[in-house]
């Protein structure tokens, strides 16, 4: 048993200190508390409604095994059980029917010999099974396919428009001298201070005046003017040397060409960060779409999930599965993001 000394060995040959124990307990607890719920969601999403309702819980998704049995009324799929036989030993038997606490059971290979069994003397025979219909059914039969599409549309359109408008504004604010430039910058910083929750009523009335209520564009447009984005891009563009632009002007490049072919490519890292954030923000948006969209066919995934979960007869198996679906894009971003933004987020104080 060299395992424990090996695990306990530390770099530098020093012994354990209480801070090491605290560190590992904290990290282990963090892992459980953070990924535990997410993992539980994933496992639960593959369970059948019957299994979701049972208590005590089982960790993995199971389903009852069934067998095709020749009954008097023709062949039937019947659930299988392990039965403690009265003469001792056990046997795998299928249940024909159940009356009170007694069940009529038969051996699948000999369907004529019916045995009465107390239900306490048997255990359901189960195997691991993934209830994939939790995923396929809402996407096909309910509106979740539609919601998914709406979410993708809003996210992609809002992100593209955000990148274009914000980079243009940032370009103007960093590379041109014009009167009132500083006051414009001040206004933008000031708008950083006013969160959506404060501006709900007026924003709603502006959108309704534009006729964009119950329209996906009503969700997209108010979100594209992200002061954070303009601010971040401007700070980045300030680092681009003006001489570069001057050289391009000498070569008779138009201002549009300068923006499109010089400034934008040089801002690519900042644009990538903004794009990632925009995707996560728009995909996860809740309060604003909740207010603007009241027609069911326009719901985004988040609103659809909330509405579905708020119904009287909550169908958890579908909610759990669709929640998993809604995490997938964020998970992709998460893996992609790992590389280069963890330092960046902390630096800009974004979000």
């Amino acid at each position, binding site marked *: 048993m060299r395992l424990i000394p090996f695990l306990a060995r530390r770099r530098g040959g020093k012994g354990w200190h209480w801070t090491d124990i605290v560190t590992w307990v904290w990290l282990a607890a963090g892992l459980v508390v*953070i990924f535990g719920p997410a993992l539980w969601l994933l496992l639960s999403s593959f369970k059948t409604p019957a299994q979701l309702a049972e208590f005590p819980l089982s960790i993995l998704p199971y389903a009852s095994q069934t067998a095709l049995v020749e009954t008097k009324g023709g062949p039937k799929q019947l659930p299988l059980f392990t039965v403690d036989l009265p003469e001792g030993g056990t046997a795998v038997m299928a249940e024909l029917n159940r009356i009170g606490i007694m069940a009529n059971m038969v051996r699948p290979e000999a369907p004529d010999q019916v045995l009465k069994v107390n239900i306490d003397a048997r255990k359901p025979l189960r195997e691991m099974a993934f209830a994939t219909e939790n995923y396929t059914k809402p996407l096909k039969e309910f509106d979740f396919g539609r919601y998914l599409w709406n979410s993708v549309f809003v996210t992609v359109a809002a992100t593209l428009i955000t990148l274009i408008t914000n980079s243009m504004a940032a370009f103007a604010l960093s590379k041109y001298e014009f009167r009132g430039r500083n006051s414009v910058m001040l206004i933008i910083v000031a708008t950083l201070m006013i969160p959506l929750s404060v501006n709900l009523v007026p924003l709603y009335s502006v959108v309704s005046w534009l006729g964009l209520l119950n329209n996906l564009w009503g969700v997209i447009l108010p979100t594209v003017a992200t002061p954070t984005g303009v601010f971040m891009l401007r700070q980045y563009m300030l680092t681009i040397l003006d001489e570069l632009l001057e050289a391009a002007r000498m070569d008779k490049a138009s201002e549009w060409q300068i923006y499109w072919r010089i400034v934008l490519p040089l801002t690519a890292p900042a644009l990538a960060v903004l794009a990632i954030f925009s995707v996560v923000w728009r995909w996860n948006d809740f309060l604003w779409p909740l207010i603007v969209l009241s027609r069911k066919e326009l719901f985004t995934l988040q609103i659809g999930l909330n509405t579905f979960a708020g119904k009287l007869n909550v169908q958890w198996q579908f909610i759990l599965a669709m929640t998993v679906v809604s995490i997938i894009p964020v998970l992709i971003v998460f893996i992609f993001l790992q590389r280069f933004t963890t330092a960046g987020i902390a630096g800009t104080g974004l979000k």
Partner: protein
Amino acid sequence: MLVFTLFVIVPLGINIAYSTTGGTDLFLPARSYVGGDNFGRLLSCADHLTPATCRDDLFWVAVWNTVRFVLLQVVVLVIVAMATALILNSKIRARGFWRAVFFFPVLLSPVVVGLIWKWIFQRQGLLNYVLFQFGADPVNWLNDRAWAFFASVGVSVWAHVGFYALILLAGLQAIPRDIYEAAELDRTSPARVFRRITLPLLWPNLLVVIVLALIRAVQVFDEVYVLTGGGPGTSTMYLTQYIYETGFASVLRNPGVASAASLLMGGVLVVLTLVQLGLTRWRDRK
């Protein structure tokens, strides 16, 4: 710029216009001027500490719920974020991995966060099952006033702690290593190192984090709304939900009162944000 004016500046003006007009009509010209009536309705109270004595009792229920929430959530959040940042900053293996683990919930949508936890808090959910394994009685987490409040605090800490831990971690990494090496040579105890070196040098960052957490906690809405819907009763109804329901969701919607309430909340937020901007400047100068 047009978009900015349209969606940020103009709304602020309209907000004020709404807050001084009455009626249920959303069309602004059709609304009658009522002056400070909306504010009066919100603010008039025999005793501000007991919402039942107020003209708009729901508003004050929301205010005091929010105050309780903010106080508890920010304290817990900052302590947990601080501990996490300190541990991530110590000599551990695979730091990038652990950093990612704690950051993961930040990317999840509030709806997802709310639903994941709602599922765990179910009467026959995972949490009660764990209790059951230890022989404890099941708790009706989201149907009990006190537990629902603590659940809303816990869930929002869970969802946001990674973000603040990351900011604090960046602050910790900016502290020069040689100070710690000197302390190690002097055999200073870890607690003393923390109190005399880490805390003073991290203080500017910590202040920014506290104010940022305050600003966001005041606006708490989505994940709690999905988790509890504000209930049971009104025990987890916070200010943003009050504004949303007064302005949009209830049958007797009243945009004027919602506007007035949002302006009051906005005032608090602007003060907090100015404090934050000042602190950020101060930090960056240091």
